[in-house]
């Protein structure tokens, strides 16, 4: 209960942040040359000024900037994200259609990066300054330096074009209609390369943090006590060190939620995944400002939600946090 109250307070504190983001984004987009109506007019092949003015009135673009901002914020309060003139649907619908693919990609990339980062970090720390450590740390540096979109393209060349083991893009095989377990396996096969591509840089960061944090915790007094009790080294690491050493990694999940969402823009475009990131890219190209604002809003909500979960997880791992009141 205490944990929830604590996390809830953090959640409430993020409301002003959200307001700043929305106001900032809205004002920023006011500076954009051309609006939705311009884009629409270009699509339908032009029209006269009276028609444009009529359309602006229809989409509420003729009101003053403060009035438009007020309209936007009050509509958002009822979770109405407006209408996407390009897709001909409400922005909320468009985003909801695209959200599952992005969430799936983020969860699988995060699980991959976290678990492998954890294991590799522990191995490196236990063999510090010997060859496994050198190898893992060097790999970490190289993974960190690899541009994700380039890694994705090279993975397609090797695994899809030459070896033909995995599909090169899409979320599922559209030529076959699968159901049940076969469909799950199909989606999983499509997600392997995107997951590796998105997760690689986070794997590098996690293993570095895990290694440093393991080394730090291993030097603390309570570890010496545990060893003095005669516990085996494996037991010391598994029962005493790991839980404490994981705390910085958990913090990092929250801090990097936004980076990961941003990374999915590129990864989804490489692998033609129908996700939120690619929608953002498309709406930039098509000047669909309503949708772009909606995506910023939803991804900000997503980042806040992830941080909420991380707060709870952190408090579970570190009992000292919920004890402080």
């Amino acid at each position, binding site marked *: 209960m205490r944990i929830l109250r604590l996390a809830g307070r953090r959640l409430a504190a*993020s409301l*002003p*942040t*959200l307001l*700043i*983001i929305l106001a*900032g*984004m809205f004002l*920023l*987009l006011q*500076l*954009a*040359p051309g609006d939705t109506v311009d884009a629409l007019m270009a699509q339908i092949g032009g029209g006269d000024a009276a028609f444009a003015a009529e359309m602006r009135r229809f989409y509420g673009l003729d009101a003053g900037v403060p009035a438009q901002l007020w309209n936007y914020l009050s509509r958002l309060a009822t979770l109405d994200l407006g209408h996407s003139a390009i897709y001909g649907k409400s922005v909320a619908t468009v985003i909801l259609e695209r959200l599952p693919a992005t969430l799936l990609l983020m969860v699988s990339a995060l699980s991959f990066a976290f678990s492998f980062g954890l294991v590799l970090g522990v191995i490196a720390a236990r063999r510090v*300054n010997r060859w496994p450590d050198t190898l893992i740390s060097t790999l970490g*540096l*190289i993974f*960190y*330096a*690899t*541009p*994700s*979109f*380039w*890694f994705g*393209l*090279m993975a*397609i*060349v090797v695994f899809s*074009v030459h070896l033909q083991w995995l599909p090169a893009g899409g979320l599922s095989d559209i030529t076959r209609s699968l159901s049940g377990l076969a469909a799950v396996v199909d989606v999983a096969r499509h997600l392997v390369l995107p997951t590796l591509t998105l997760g690689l840089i986070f794997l590098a960061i996690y293993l570095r943090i895990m290694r440093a944090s393991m*080394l*730090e915790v291993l*030097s603390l007094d309570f570890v010496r006590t545990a060893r003095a009790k005669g516990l085996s080294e494996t037991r010391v690491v598994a029962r005493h060190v790991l839980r404490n050493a994981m705390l910085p990694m958990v913090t990092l999940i929250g*801090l990097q939620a*936004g*980076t*990961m*969402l*941003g*990374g999915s*823009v*590129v990864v989804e*475009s490489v692998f033609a995944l129908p996700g939120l990131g690619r929608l*953002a*890219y498309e709406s*930039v*190209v098509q*000047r669909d400002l309503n949708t*772009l604002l909606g*995506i*910023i809003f939803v*991804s*900000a909500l997503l*980042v*806040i939600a992830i941080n909420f979960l991380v707060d709870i997880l952190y408090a579970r791992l570190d009992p000292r946090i919920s004890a402080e009141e």
Partner: protein
Amino acid sequence: MRALRAFLRSPAAVIGSVILLAVLVMGVSAHWFYPGDPLGLAGRPLQWPGQNPRFPLGTDPSGRDIAAQLFHGARVSLLIGFVATAIAALIGIAIGALAGFYGGAVDTALMRVTEAFQTVPNFLLLLVLVAVFGSTIETVTIAIGIVSWPPVARLTRAEFLTLRTRDFVQACRVQGLSDAHLILREVLPNALPPVIVYASVVMAVAILLESALAFLQLSDPNVPSWGNLIGLGRNVLRTEWYVSAIPGVAILLTILGVSLVGQGLNDALNPRLASGR
């Protein structure tokens, strides 16, 4: 001097410096080795590396010399990296210093804004900025600087929070020195080392952000950029994969160089932390 010696003793720093120096030399000598326009037609398109001795790294789908684009691209990547990092450091240090030094309402307001910037995924914000202000190389560089400052601000603020109550700062305050003097002459020099180390991370991220933007063809198309070339190579990926592969290696090595130098700086400037490794 001691810091420089420590820096040169670390193998990571030396390897990183050598790589970065090589990229720098590539960028500086680009006009000398490849005086023509790197984006101009050079020969028959899609010649494999080694196929034609005139083009050691081959040509791209538009018949442009890949080696020439690589040399000129080094200049663009480094320039964007340096300038965007400088912008991010300037904004971040200013905001972090004011928030950390004054505390209270100033701190709360500035940190709310910082949080807002951190809550929006930085690549999405970059997309919005480029969509609004256009994608010339200047706007892209400034936009990358604008999305990269929040971690610098947080780091600077944390340093200022611990330093502002120290005795030497209090002593200066008692002497009646101005706030500007306290911030710029007393606290800032002591707060800088971790910020300088972190600048290497900012620079690596800035180069990656630009190349990702160029890869999506949303950066300046009139500038030879490594990311741009990777994006162009995508259309012929199945057969002529070298078009995308070669500039990617260049980006990888540059980021590796920046990270290694950053690690070396960290070991040299924070000797207390380095001894643990």
